[in-house]
């Protein structure tokens, strides 16, 4: 399947990041590769552009970060959800469920006009 990037992904980047971080703290490279792995490469984006999004989330108090040493290379900056971030992740997840159900209804429905 061809990779999806650009504007479709951009609008949902925060939903993806926050909901991945619900599971465990992650660092940037890990977030990018995890999204790619779980979608079999369908969702792929310019990985550098992840950082402005992460920094923005941190400024808004939705995530916190901490540096951790790594025995496999340079130190890594891990991001973890704050309580507010957890609530926001849940809100965005519900919103996405409503949206995707609605889109599927449009695709699967028959015209009665």
């Amino acid at each position, binding site marked *: 399947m061809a990779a999806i990037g650009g504007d479709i992904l951009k609008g949902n980047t925060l939903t993806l990041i926050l909901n991945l971080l619900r599971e465990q703290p992650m*660092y*940037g*490279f890990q977030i*990018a*590769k995890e999204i790619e792995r779980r979608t079999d490469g369908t969702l792929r984006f*310019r*990985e*550098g*552009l992840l*950082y*402005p999004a992460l*920094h*923005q989330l941190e*400024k808004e108090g939705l995530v916190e970060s901490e*540096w951790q040493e790594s025995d496999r*290379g*340079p*130190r*890594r*900056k891990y991001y973890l959800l704050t309580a507010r971030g957890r609530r926001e992740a849940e809100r965005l997840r519900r919103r996405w469920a409503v949206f995707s159900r609605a889109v599927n209804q449009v695709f699967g429905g028959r015209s009665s006009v």
Partner: protein
Amino acid sequence: MSSIEAYLDQACGQLYVNPAVATDIWDELRGHLEELVAWHRREGVDEEEALRLALAGFGEPAKLNSYLHMVHHGDGLWARRLKAMALGMALGSLISLLSALARQMGSASPLLLASVGAAGSQLYLPIGAITTGGLIGLLSARRGGFFVGWTLGSLAWLVAYAAVWVSGTVSGSFSPQESLSAFYGVLLSPILGGLFGAAVSLGSGALLSAGSRLRPTIR
């Protein structure tokens, strides 16, 4: 300089954040790029190709820079404003000094007097030049650049000289030479004030970007 550092120089340049934050951003992006290179290497490509793929996959450095700038814009704004104000006041002091020297030269031409701001009261001129320089620095610290500084400087110079010329001429307290130099000051405000303002604006921009530029951490 490695191609990763050249990329980061472009992606992280001109961010006005404090040095600790700057180093954090630099280290974070560099760590990701290094892991990306290693990841491509494990996929079986050679070092050079791995580096090329990593940089291409990271995105346009200019675009990343503009996004980082958007997020971190204003982080160090007040420090930047204060430095720009100090530079403007220093330039204003220099003009005052040149003005005082020009006055010592009794035979100086009105044009020379106007070009160094030596028209009007000896007391008001240093205060005016220093205050104006500081204000230009303060106002141009956020946006900076030649045109912002040039416009602010021209307007300030025009208003100051027009006030000096009108008040000195109407009250009759000016000698013909002083009146002429004040008149020249009004006419030359787009050049003299503009250059003054642009120097403050561009000078503070250069000074600040040199002071807060992202620095790599040497490991």
